[in-house]
């Protein structure tokens, strides 16, 4: 598989520090030529940082980069691209208002001697790049009208059109359907056959085992394992990722099945709608029961309807049909204020976009949702926020500092504190530990478990298998707006979650279909 062999790109003794933590701690990483180099690690392990350094997006504090045995200085993504190193980001960086060809040449437009676009040449070169990907997309079609999978292909075409030798794919399948994923795998294998070196980041183990030639595991900014395909097993990866022989579950107090029902959802339906350039999945008859003191995990792929379900319960999205009962009483959830008054509070998925108000202080952010007096009293607020900060272990000396001064983990705790300040009975968490380092992650798990033991009912979504297995007392799997499976604590495994979450029966079978659905 690794024909050609040798090392094409190397990061030697690289150190990258961020305020508060070391993201990469003296890492030496070698990229094998003409192979799929897989990089694995939990969120916050340093994968994305390392990729950004290799792609010139960020610069290392110490250490050197070597390309084909020559020292390499990368000051910007443009310089990396000139050396043939290209990255396709997890969050796709396409311009939806432009057409495919314009996207392929965005920022590097072909012009005549006068600054006039060579539109025809851009179109023909875009088309030929897409042909290499076996995807004859219309080059004059607007990117806004393409599916996520096809948008990704546009990004891939962009890298090919500019002659990438080393292609970095950062969690390329996190937003793709099974068929799209299978098509992507096909493309990756063809690119490798055509002599492109691939760097592939993912935490979906089955994908990695399927595709990878060389495996590198990162944990807390260090490389903790390197091996070739023949030596790698699932067990090997899991052990090195987590640093434990078997991942430890957050000790559950053992929720009595007889514990009273806190929240009941019956036959919930919503209509699909386009919002913020993404299509929201319609919920199609979702029913669930959440008991007092229970931590219920909601697993599903992107677009399965997890966020939509939470948004209905938080009063953000109207429901077309169905009933929501809180402690046996039906509740109307027409606005967020109504949901909070009823005792349902939500921590959103995207802290920066939907959670924090950067202009306000830590204190003001915490008390934002609380029903307060007619006249605010900073002294009372400070005291309340102090209590919550102690309870949740928010590390901040001065509560009057801007909330942006905190680390990701502490910012997440601020949002948690905002919800707790409303004294909720049901806590909704959308991806509770997204973009948080491992230590803070486990701390948040412990805090959530404590809150649950104190009688709070928690419903959380996660696209991480590990998080679901560690935190949940019980897991529901959503697929295309429906509950596809219910798994009791003992039965939450990677295989069970994947199998239930995929719209098609088996992923391996889908691979051979070669994504004809695209």
């Amino acid at each position, binding site marked *: 598989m690794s024909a050609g062999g040798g090392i094409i790109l190397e990061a030697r003794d690289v150190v990258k520090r961020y305020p508060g933590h070391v993201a990469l701690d003296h890492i030496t990483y070698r990229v094998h030529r003409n192979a799929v180099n897989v990089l694995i690690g939990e969120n916050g392990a340093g994968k994305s940082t390392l990729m950004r350094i290799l792609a010139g997006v960020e610069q290392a504090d110490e250490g050197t980069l070597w390309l084909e045995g020559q020292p390499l200085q990368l000051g910007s993504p443009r310089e990396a691209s000139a050396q043939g190193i290209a990255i396709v980001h997890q969050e796709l960086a396409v311009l939806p208002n432009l057409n495919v060809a314009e996207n392929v040449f965005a920022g590097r437009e072909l012009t005549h001697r006068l600054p006039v676009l060579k539109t025809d040449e851009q179109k023909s070169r875009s088309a030929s790049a897409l042909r290499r990907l076996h995807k004859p997309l219309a080059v004059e079609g607007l990117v806004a009208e393409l599916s996520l999978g096809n948008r990704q292909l546009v990004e891939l075409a962009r890298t090919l059109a500019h002659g990438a030798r080393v292609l970095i794919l950062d969690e390329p399948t996190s937003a793709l359907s099974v068929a799209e994923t299978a098509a992507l795998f096909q493309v990756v294998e063809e690119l490798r056959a055509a002599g492109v070196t691939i760097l592939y980041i993912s935490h979906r183990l089955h994908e990695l085992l399927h595709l990878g030639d060389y495996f590198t595991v990162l944990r807390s900014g260090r490389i903790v394992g390197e091996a070739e395909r023949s030596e790698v097993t699932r067990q090997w990866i899991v052990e090195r990722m987590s640093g434990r022989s078997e991942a430890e579950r957050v000790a559950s107090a053992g929720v009595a099945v007889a514990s009273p029902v806190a929240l009941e959802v019956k036959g919930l339906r919503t209509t699909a709608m386009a919002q913020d350039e993404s299509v929201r999945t319609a919920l199609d008859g979702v029913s669930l029961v959440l008991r007092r003191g229970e931590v219920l995990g909601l697993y599903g792929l992107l677009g399965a309807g997890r966020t939509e379900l939470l948004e209905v319960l938080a009063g953000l999205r109207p429901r077309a049909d169905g009933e929501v009962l809180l402690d046996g009483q039906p509740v109307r959830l027409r606005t967020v204020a109504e949901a909070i008054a009823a005792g349902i509070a939500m921590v*959103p998925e995207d802290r920066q976009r*939907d*959670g924090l*108000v950067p*202009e306000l202080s830590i204190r*003001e952010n915490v008390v*934002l*949702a609380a029903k*307060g007096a007619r006249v605010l009293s900073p002294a009372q607020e400070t005291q309340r926020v102090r209590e919550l900060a102690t309870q949740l272990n928010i590390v901040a*000396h001065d509560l009057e500092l801007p909330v942006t001064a905190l680390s990701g983990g502490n910012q997440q705790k601020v949002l948690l504190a905002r919800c707790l300040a409303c004294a909720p009975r049901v806590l909704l968490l959308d991806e509770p530990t997204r973009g948080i380092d491992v230590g803070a992650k486990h701390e948040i798990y412990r805090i959530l478990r404590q809150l649950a033991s104190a009688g709070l009912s928690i419903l959380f979504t996660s696209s991480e298998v590990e998080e679901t297995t560690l935190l949940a007392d019980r897991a529901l799997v959503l697929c295309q707006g429906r509950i596809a499976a219910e798994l009791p604590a003992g039965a939450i495994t990677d295989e069970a979650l994947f199998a239930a979450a995929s719209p098609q029966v088996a992923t391996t079978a889908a691979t051979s279909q070669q994504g004809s659905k695209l």
Partner: protein
Amino acid sequence: MTPIAQTLSRSNRLADRGARLLLLLLRARAVLVLVVLLAVFALLVPSFLSANNLSILSKHVSISAIVAIGMTFVVLAGGIDLSVGSMAGLSGMVAGYVLTHHAGGDATLLAVLAALLACLAVGAVNGLLVTRAGVAPFIATLGTLYIARGAALLISNGKTFPNLGGDASGTTRLFPAIGQSFLLHLPTPVWVMAMLFAIASGVATRTPLGRHIYAIGGNERAARLAGINVAQVKLVTYLFSGLCGALVGLIIAAQLEASHPATGETFELNAIAAVVLGGTSLMGGRGTVLGSLLGAFVIGVLADGLVMLGVSEFWQIVIKGLVIVLAVSIDQLQTRLQAAFLPYLMRSSTEAGR
């Protein structure tokens, strides 16, 4: 600790102090500029600080300050209100119409109520266009700028309503008192300004409504998710701005004892200038009512001082523009400095905590 380390930490502390001082100066820049302006004009124009001139100055300032206070909440919540100047014109014309056409007795109260209602209606239209119809605030209020101005012209067919203080038949009215009377040696408009300022800064710092306005301007999605009724809060900001526009229109009509449909043109731009000078971000979420008040003072003092110095009217306009551009540039500098010093400030505060 070695002597070298001691020296280093001392110089660090000095740099820290310097940074804090610079930030403090930047934050207080509106006050500094105002003090400098007053000093310069007092030196160059001996009569500048005379009681008579200060009285005239305070009337001018209070008019732009009232509009600026109303504008502040709109801008803090991430909007803008271009229609305030037209509302001032509309308010005066509505009052003039009522006073002129009301037969028998003093219709001052009725005129004031009608003017306030007319402008609150325009404010409500602004708020509903922005929150329900989803029109961008700039466009929505640009539309009502024209509509309100047109309505003001239509009321009198473009003519002035004269003799609002009383007419030839001998009826006298209370109306001019709104703009001309004194209370404790201070003109009424100054009192109106002071009251609005007290209410507005109380609301901004002490009430949930104020907190919600800042939150919406800072991150509207987050505000919505925190259960804040974003539409209602925004509507309130436009209503308050309309109220301020109406008051200014009434004051001007009362001062002149006449109302003219062109009253208030470009007031909205003066108000925005004052708000920005006062350090409020046009992106929303950051700023103070006091800042806008100071901004209005700076613009007012500058305008009157330049007149007294005999600077040509055309140069005055250029200078006003320069001051605004400079102020916003300094604002950007402050934002960048704050961002640069944030880790620094944090470190020293955690160290102090140990």
